[in-house]
């Protein structure tokens, strides 16, 4: 089991989701995040004072996959999320020891 975590641009979520479904991924967990990195934020102005907002809104995906699918899933995400502009994000994988489906108590590949 691997956990693929991806940080992507928010407006790419739909594309990534569609690509993953096509690949056969059945579920995932999504959350909001803010990114710091090479990509610059924007500026807001309030009564003549300028504020630099240096965080950039991002979406964080977590996808549990079987070991053998990990590489391909990473690939699918990277392709679908790519715009080629700075700030497209990162994808990484970490090892997972156990996975349980809460509803049934099934573990391992069954739990996905």
């Amino acid at each position: 089991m691997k956990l693929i975590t991806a940080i992507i641009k928010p407006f790419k979520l739909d594309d990534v989701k569609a690509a993953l479904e096509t690949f056969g991924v059945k579920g995932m967990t999504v959350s909001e995040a803010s990114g710091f990195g090479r990509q610059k934020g924007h500026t807001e102005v309030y009564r003549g004072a300028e504020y630099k907002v240096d965080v950039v809104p991002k979406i964080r995906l977590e996808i549990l996959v079987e070991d053998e699918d990990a590489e391909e899933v990473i690939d699918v995400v990277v392709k679908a999320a790519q715009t080629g502009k700075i700030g497209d994000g990162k994808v990484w994988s970490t090892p997972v020891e156990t996975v349980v489906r809460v509803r049934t108590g099934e573990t391992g590949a069954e739990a996905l």
Partner: protein
Amino acid sequence: MEIDSGNTAWILTSAALVLLMTPGLAFFYGGMSRAKSVLNMMMMSFVSMSIVSMVWVLWGYSVAFGSEGGVPAFFGGLDVWGLVGLEATGEGYPDLAFVAFQATFAIITVALISGAIADRTKFMTWCVFVPIWITLVYLPIAHWVWFSEGWIFKLGALDFAGGTVVHINAGCAALALALVLGKRKGWPKEPMRPHNLPFVLLGAGLLWFGWFGFNAGSALAANETASLAFVNTIVATGAAGFTWIMVEKLRDGAATTLGIASGIVAGLVAITPAAATMTPLGALVLGLVAGAVCAVAVGLKYKLGYDDSLDVVGVHLVGGIIGALAIGVWGSAALGADSLLSDGSATLLGKQAMAVGATMAYSFVVTFILGKVLDLTMGFRVDEEAEVTGIDIVEHAESAYDLNTSSTSGLGGSTAAPIAGDIKKVEADA
């Protein structure tokens, strides 16, 4: 006639009520926008208040209601520009009370248009559009309908409080601009749901409240006519809100808050021209009809493919037409509307249709040309990146909300120091 303090009090109160309608509209529209473009939407209403108030004093009132120097059937002259030399009309109230009351009508009319072009309008172009549109479109139509020498007034078509001048006019202009600016990226595939429905209800509530000034105030006196218009503005509105959600319940399975808010506005629009020429029962029926028809009409845009984002056409144009024609069909002869049902004659209905048609044609054509010219010169629409990022940040350098309660957290928040002076706008990067 001497000035009557009671009538004056009512006109001033009504003017204040109608002025409040534009902030109300800003919330009605703003709540329906997405969270990333609510400020732009509200700004279009607020800047209309700013710009039109100046235009009205400088030349607006004079062109709409001035009696000398223009072409009486079509527009007034500049004889009372700057409100200098305004003379008492002897109507029992101060002229300036009438000036104030009418100013608020001009403001809301142009603000209404903005609902059609949500999420994508260049703010500076809108600022240029407003005074030109008021001058070329609103002032002449107001003159036709309400000035005693205006051609529609003389024709004998009835428009008590502004069904043609305000709603049909704004609805047609909205359609023209929706066509000029084109569809939003992703429309209609991508869902663009209201970001704040309580704000939509706030807007609807303030609009209803303000509309008593609009309709009952149009009697320009605190009398029987005003009271009739007031009752009709309660019952037609209530009825339209009700049928709209009943249509929804039957068709979609659920009665929505957006539905009742929209129905309320549809009812208000429909009763506007008819407020003093219908009995309360007639107004109730008008409300029932307007609510149901408009509930269906807002779906037209998906069929016809124009992105009238917040349904100005479906509510104001359609509702305005229903109200204007209904006078000719079931207006009350006792109240001056020799309608089909109360008088057996179609003459009034014909006049109503002519007034509606002329207003529609003029408003659409002139607005479309004006829109195109501005689009070709200044550009009327932001670029795609700005639309995706959110127009609030790009056009106004602000975002509507920062609800994070952690002191200096960077989440949805800003982290660098304020820099006073030496400031330049930085483009946001999606």
